[in-house]
């Protein structure tokens, strides 16, 4: 199961909980009306807990996510890796077509004309890495392919009417 599908499941659970809360509140209107001050008194207490919990959750999420940021740290950039230039242009990628397994690769991604995206799909069709390809700039994307097979690079930034055709397949593993 891909990371994105797990995220979909997480989203569905959270959305169901949220909708459930709304439905409970909606059904409460069938019960005898309660004085607004009484509702406010209890509601403010719950709100205080809600605010504190959500704040703590988001701060924890932020702290937890930082080590997983994909930006190349200086120390990592100095480690041995295969440097591979990728030039994007309307509507093609200029790049090698064979890559080794289990070896660090740093894609040096730029564009010759407009903004493009460089999204890498594994043999199962899961989006495993991506970076933007921007004219005048070079983005460095570090990837290690653990699984041999045929991968596909797709453009993930709209670049003109040929956008959907802009893809390139490459092989990871022995030639």
């Amino acid at each position, binding site marked *: 199961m891909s990371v994105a599908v797990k995220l979909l499941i997480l989203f569905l659970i959270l959305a169901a909980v949220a909708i459930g809360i709304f439905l409970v509140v909606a059904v409460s*209107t069938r019960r005898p009306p309660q004085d*607004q001050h009484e509702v406010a008194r209890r509601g403010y207490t719950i709100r205080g807990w809600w605010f504190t919990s959500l704040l703590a959750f988001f701060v924890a999420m932020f702290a937890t996510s930082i080590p997983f940021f994909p930006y190349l740290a200086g120390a990592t950039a100095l480690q041995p890796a295969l440097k591979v230039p990728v030039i994007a242009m309307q509507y093609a990628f200029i790049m090698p077509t064979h890559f080794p397994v289990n070896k660090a690769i740093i894609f040096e991604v730029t564009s010759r004309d407009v*903004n493009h995206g460089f999204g890498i799909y594994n043999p199962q069709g899961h989006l495993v890495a991506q970076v933007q390809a921007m004219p005048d700039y070079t983005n460095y994307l570090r990837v290690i392919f653990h699984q041999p097979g045929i991968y596909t690079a797709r453009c993930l930034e709209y670049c003109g009417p040929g956008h959907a055709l802009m893809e390139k397949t490459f092989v990871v593993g022995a030639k």
Partner: protein
Amino acid sequence: MMVDSELLKTDAVGCRVMRWYMGTGLSLVGFMMLVGLLLRASQAHWMPLSADTFYALLTLHGAMVIVALNMCGMGGLWFLMRQQISLRPSVAVVAYVLTVMGAAGVVIATLIGQFAALYTFLAPLPFHGNWPHWSTGVFLISMALITMGWIGWCMQMLGGVLRAYGGLRPAMGWDFVWHRQSFDAAGGRVPPPQAFPALMVGFDGLLAGTSGMLLGIALLVHWVDPRVLISPLWAKNLTYFFAHTYANLIIYMLAALIYVGLPYATGRKYHTSAVLAIGWWCSMALTLTNYFHHLYMDFVQPGAFQYLGELSSYLSALPVTAVTIFSALMLVWRSGMKWTLGAVFMYAGLMGWVVGGIGAEIDASVPFNVHLHNTLWVPAHFHTYLVGGCLLFVVGWLFLYVEARSDRRTGAAMRWLVGLLTFGGMSVFLAGFYWAGAYGVPRRYAVEPPPGPHLAKIASIGAVVMLLGFFVALFEWLRLRFGYTARYRATMIPEVGAHD
């Protein structure tokens, strides 16, 4: 039950301004939903369009939906604030004319000129397409007109609020929050809840509009003289600062309708509190830095902005859920509210706001964004927010408005029919986007890789059912509209307290 509400006020000028803005905005939204259906049907291979036509229509659809919903927010908030502060209609009329002229220009540039650089028109794409050179100019000038209208509206709103409440500090409720005793002793007047969105939108909208104009002028200069170069990273930052903020402010404008509409529907009161004021201060600041999440995959962006983008995107959920949404739930809780279509739409809009927000927060996490950025997950969450949130608030408000003045009532069968068609269809329509996004289907593909086409078919069916629901709702709204009370028709003064 006696209810005194701004919703019941009859300010002929305010009503007319709201009618023009919301009428035009909703008409445009209706047409653009049909265009959107055509695009999804094309992706489903049911009505294949050429790539040139597909992207020209996608440009039209994206730009016009945002502008149209923004117009609804502008009209609604203007109407409400006109009850509180001095607002001259001439500025609103000029802003309206500029926006409509801009919208007409976008239609010409896309339908006749086949301009297809999308509503984000990321530089330098507008100058690298196969569309005619003139259409790029028409599109850029049109967007500049829309932005000028927006800036004018924001300046009037911001100026009006600051003038009415005696400056920024009192308009923010600063002393009301921090020096309550002296504030009360001095007989201070705290702004009503809807004044906070007005201040926030006026301030943030002005900054966003100014950056949009700066970008527009730079692009127009390049259009005239291509030797003038523009940094793509600079342009991308300005594009998203303008576009994200402009789109995000729609729901903040419509929050004012919730602050007035829900108290009316529940028969309860909603006052300014310290928590509400602080919540809006936070939203005012966080909305300005959220846009960084659009550039997570631009690794050359300064690193601090990426961290700030994630933190700010997370924190922006706090004032929304802990203040506006939570207060709305407290208003409804055991209120005995009658579930008229106005109440149903407005309440469902709150749900759409939350559900779309969950999708957005997941995507705003940098490690997750790697797997979701520019897949169909992105239109999934913003369609939830725009159709399931903003549009429902506008429709709910308009229903509450006519329900308060009409002799007629909507029967239970009609409410169920509208609800099932609209929300059932909407759920299926949105599920197609989320599912495809989770399977990595890229957004903005005229021809999608699998499983995109299959999911586009499901989404198209959902969209048809949803549109049918809105269509039935339109007829019901007209039926209520033509059933205004005799007293209202004769005097044009609404029946305060007619609602029970």
